[in-house]
């Protein structure tokens, strides 16, 4: 399996434009932003004063904040594009016919998901380390204290929070990737995979609109709107709310009806089921597929 992982890594990193623009763009953006902040700090006393006015930025908070940078619409679209290239690229280049006789289909697909996860994790960690280093340099230039000191308690607490935030971001990107990968199996085309994956990820939000219409037009029971709570979008927001506020994500969907938030554990379970389900769907579509290109 290590050998298969290296094969996946080699062919993906070999596509320098795709990896550069869709994966290393995150750490590259962190480098760019840090350099910009350093240059402005060096040139502008006003900016240094402004930083002093803002006060110290704890490195642990900054590092945790940066992890969620990828977890937005643009970030997910970038990951969708990267997944489309990884999965649908094999159809477009006609290379499945070289791979399928050499390995069973299931490990070939699973290794793509594993490689994707590694790329995303490496990119996120690199992004957050670079961003914190940039903050440290600009803080030093502005004469602001950069803390807190790294004690075992702080480190332990930080690590727990950081990993949880990493898990949330990774889950969100995996959901997006799952849509794009399943779409790749159907469309067999990079652009098709990207478009269908994007439409599917948008579909989450339309569930809420659809249930609103069902409730208002067809006069179905208001509980129909709870269906939204089973989408990845709601559950990711709910987990984030639990982490940040210690309370679940509640949403008033009608005058007399608010969604009762799930517990964090329930949301984690639903997200896990979505991820497993999307990977299983991709495997199911690929396992019996005729490779004709």
């Amino acid at each position, binding site marked *: 399996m290590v*050998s298969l992982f*290296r094969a996946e890594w*080699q062919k993906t990193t070999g596509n320098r434009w795709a990896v550069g623009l869709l994966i290393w763009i995150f750490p590259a953006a962190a480098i760019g932003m840090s350099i910009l902040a350093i240059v402005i700090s060096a040139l502008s006393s006003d900016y240094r004063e402004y930083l002093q006015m803002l006060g110290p930025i704890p490195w642990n908070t900054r590092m945790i904040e940066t992890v969620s940078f990828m977890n937005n619409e643009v970030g997910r679209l970038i990951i969708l594009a990267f997944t489309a290239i990884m999965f649908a690229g094999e159809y477009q280049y006609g290379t499945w*016919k*070289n791979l399928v*006789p050499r390995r069973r289909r299931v490990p070939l697909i699973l290794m793509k998901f594993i490689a994707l996860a590694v790329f995303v994790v490496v990119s996120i960690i690199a992004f957050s380390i670079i961003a914190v280093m940039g903050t440290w340099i600009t803080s030093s230039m502005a004469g602001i204290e950069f803390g807190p000191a790294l004690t075992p308690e702080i480190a332990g607490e930080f690590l727990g929070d950081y990993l949880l935030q990493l898990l949330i971001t990774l889950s969100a990107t995996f959901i997006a990737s799952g849509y794009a990968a399943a779409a790749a199996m159907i469309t067999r085309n990079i652009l098709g995979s990207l478009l269908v994956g994007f439409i599917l990820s948008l579909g989450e939000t339309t569930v809420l609109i659809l249930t609103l219409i069902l409730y208002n037009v067809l006069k179905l029971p208001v509980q129909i709107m709870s269906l939204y709570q089973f989408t990845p979008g709601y559950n990711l927001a709910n987990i984030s709310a639990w982490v940040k506020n210690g309370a679940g994500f509640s949403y008033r969907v009608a005058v007399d009806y608010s969604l009762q938030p799930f517990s964090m554990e329930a949301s984690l379970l639903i997200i896990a089921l979505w991820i497993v389900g999307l990977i299983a769907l991709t495997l199911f579509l690929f396992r019996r597929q*005729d490779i*004709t290109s």
Partner: protein
Amino acid sequence: MESAVRFENISKTFGRGKKQVHAVKNVTLDIGVGQVFGFLGPNGAGKTTTIRMMLTLLRPTQGRVLLYGKDVQREHDILKRVGATVEGAAFYPYLSGQANLEVLARTAGHYNPQRIRALLEQVDLTERARQRFSSYSLGMKQRLGLAAALLHDPDMIILDEPTNGLDPSGIQEMRTFIRELADKHGKTVVLSSHLLNEVEQICDRVAIINKGEIIREGTVKGLLEGKAKLRIEAAPLDKAAAVLGARYAVTPNSHSMTLEAERGDVPRIIRQLIAADIEVYEVVSQKQSLEEYFLAVIQENTTHG
């Protein structure tokens, strides 16, 4: 004869309803170990579909493919004994030739840099090994495909149109190379081609496939021995044509006529002409080429099939 490949009544259908296409129909065939076997057929006959089923790229609608006695759909590991290029060499365009081979070797779990270097040298790509695949000529792509097929030193090599894009000397080299694989290294080679002259020179056995069905199968020599094309010079020619026309399809020319007959019929034909008081000046048995045989068989199958 030990069987390297056995097709057991395989069929492959694409599409449904009115759009249904029967690409391969009830093919049953054995290919022996150490043979060079050729699939012949016009475009769209079902050659590549048959090869794809051998490699699990396509799932037969009916029947099964056995490689060295094992059902390839159930025991995928048997494909470790097989190397193949299917329908033109396709690789990652942004990777070099060498990197493409490395990726394939790692995918199969037998990465060996020395072997890769040796193969690149064997297919004369050492100098261009580090250049992008997208910059390769068609011939170079074909040679890289051959290197990929030989990467893990398989017992059986499947080559789909292996000489496409090669220049005459490249075709000659490929021909020699394929024969050597069988003669010197005991490999089984299965190839598909529409270059009949090439197949005639390389293959031990051939199967002619048309509209998804195998219409002839046997050794090249055996297939060509069956019928002879006779050129007969006799006088009076019109009388001779009338005598033989009752039984054979006779084509009269200015001074002679030609007809196709079993070799065993030749003495009887001569006796028949003499008995009819026709003077026979010359009977020439012209050896049929595989190309002529192929075209005649395809035409016959298209007309009567």
